[in-house]
């Protein structure tokens, strides 16, 4: 059996050595060879080395014509990791289509379809109200409708920076007990109802691919990027 292993001892700093080994067994019994970590060697650079735990006369480790091993760390640092290992298979369009569910702040990824406040209210009462309260607040779970005067805990109307996130989140994660069960139209309806209840759209506004990204969200102006790393004290 020809096995390449990386060996590093006090004496051998050449990392990758080719080892020819006779029967490798777990020589933990009394009949195993005495461990000997001091290698012998000759001028030609060949080294015989009794590796503890390997049976037989000890493997002959040859450093002849073996390119030095380059560690992954070094390769990563010097960007000499093989560009391609060739593992994995090409992703087909269907592979991507079934999982690519994200909706960006620019509306990229929004599906066909549309929603209305009316329809949304009806769906909400059936599928959401028992956790989030009949009017989007006062339920056992997150408050979905911000107080009209902006007081109280943050919610969609006072805090969320993008209306598209609402569609994205409800579609991927709600209803909590049956995630992924809503049709795209239902998600549009619920998005419309939640935006309306938060005072962000008129009751008769249709919500779809075209209108959703353009809905102004008061939360957007609040957000600033993280600036802590430039400082050595709390920010």
């Amino acid at each position, binding site marked *: 059996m020809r096995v390449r292993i990386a060996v590093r001892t006090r004496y051998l700093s050449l990392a990758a050595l080719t080892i020819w080994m006779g029967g490798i067994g777990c020589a933990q019994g009394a009949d195993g060879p005495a461990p000997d970590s001091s290698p012998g060697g000759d001028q030609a650079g060949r080294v015989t080395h009794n590796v503890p735990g390997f049976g037989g006369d000890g493997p002959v480790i040859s450093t002849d014509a073996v390119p030095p091993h380059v560690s*992954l*760390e070094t*390769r*990563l640092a010097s960007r000499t*990791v*093989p*560009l*391609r*290992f060739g*593992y*994995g*298979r*090409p*992703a087909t369009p269907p*592979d*991507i289509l079934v*999982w*690519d*569910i*994200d909706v*960006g*702040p*620019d509306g990229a990824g929004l599906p066909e379809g549309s929603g209305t406040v009316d329809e949304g209210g009806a769906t909400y009462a059936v599928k959401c109200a028992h956790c989030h309260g009949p009017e989007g607040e006062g339920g056992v779970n997150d408050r979905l409708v911000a107080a009209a005067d902006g007081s109280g805990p*943050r919610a*969609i109307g006072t*805090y*969320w*920076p*993008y209306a*598209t*996130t609402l569609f*994205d*989140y409800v579609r*991927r*994660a709600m209803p*909590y007990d049956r*995630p*992924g069960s809503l049709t795209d139209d239902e998600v549009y309806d619920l998005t419309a109802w939640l935006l309306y209840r938060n005072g962000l759209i008129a009751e008769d506004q249709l919500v779809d691919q075209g209108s959703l990204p353009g809905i102004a969200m008061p*939360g957007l102006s*609040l*957000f*600033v*990027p*993280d*600036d*802590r*790393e430039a*400082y*050595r*004290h*709390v*920010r």
Partner: protein
Amino acid sequence: MAGADGVPIKPISRRRLLAGAAGATLASLAGAGAGDADGSDQGETGLPRSGADGQQTAGQATDAADTTKSIGRPISELGSRSPHENPRRVLRTTSSGTPHEHLHGIITPSDLHYERHHAGIPNVDPANYSLLIHGMVERPLVFTLDDIKRFPSVSQVYFLECAGNFPTRATEETRPAEVAPLTSTSEWTGVPLSVLFREVGVLPEATWFLAEGQDGAVLGRSIPVEKGWDDALIAYGQNGEALRPEQGYPVRLFNPGWEGNTSVKWLRRIELSDRPFMTREETSRYTEPISDGRVRQFSFVMDARSLITSPGYPQVVEPGWIEIRGIAWSGRGKIDRVDISVDDGRTWAPADLQEPVLPKAFTRFRYLWEWDGRETAVWSRAVDETGYVQPSAQEFIAARTARSSYHHNPTTGWRIRADGSVVYRTQEWA
């Protein structure tokens, strides 16, 4: 009743036994755990009992208790803890936390690693697992678990910490585990994300990527591409074995030093893009009001923090030598120093740090202290290799006038009363 030396022996009280056997610090650690909320009651601390009346004498161990008189338990396929050890995670509604006061060293046993999920723990079949990488890449690819494991691998010790990991309303009856439950350290094994980035050929215009899980929340976070080129891992190993389901089995993203939520578990998809995706977990959540009505977003790095794990509530200590023990960590790199105060914050002196001190991992600190029996409070304060100093609560509150629950890292301490009882040193949170 007489002992081996003929001296009459009274039944040894639990308190005396402990004090004698283990010294002040350990005694109270084990003893005070009785009736503890985490179920870690270890009864009579595992020391042998004897007699129907529960009495025990030093020279009179029963045959059953004398382990030298019988053959022990045979070998087994799967090891287990001593029946006398029963550490438990601290349960909360949506999370469970690491019981720091029961642990030594820096590695958190995998079954005690904290957990926080947004839609429970999915049961992922590794045979059906695949990871899709697409978007702004030359070659969108799908990897099976075997594919991922074939790539060159690395193993690194890193802490993980949830962004919300500080009890602002803590009472005196708060245990070390409850002060910082949602942080743990493991050795993580996986393929550097940069290797996969090269494999798919990430385009130069890609600046962010979406990492998405296959849990019920299909949880997604946007991560700057630089983190992938830097030190992010696609991890499948934890402390020498496969990831625990709670930690994302079979594959998770791991962003060293960053808030836990970004290290997306049960990872199924990575999409490269030239802008962040603005998911709910980086807008509505995991963003924090700081001051002047501003809300900080993409606050990834976890600031330096430390925790004294002993002494702590509900221990009872005795005057004399006490080894103050704890852990410190920083998302920016290595811990440089941990200062200890034994006079309630007036003066500070550096603790010993256990080598090796690893970047973005727990560092164990120790400080040997002779307590004179007078009421005081002990504190710890971490300083990391960038020079960042862990703030006091007052400094923290002054810097962030708005209240939120994320990225709190102020110093904490333990009050030691004259009777030896240890309680959490409560602080004002305006």
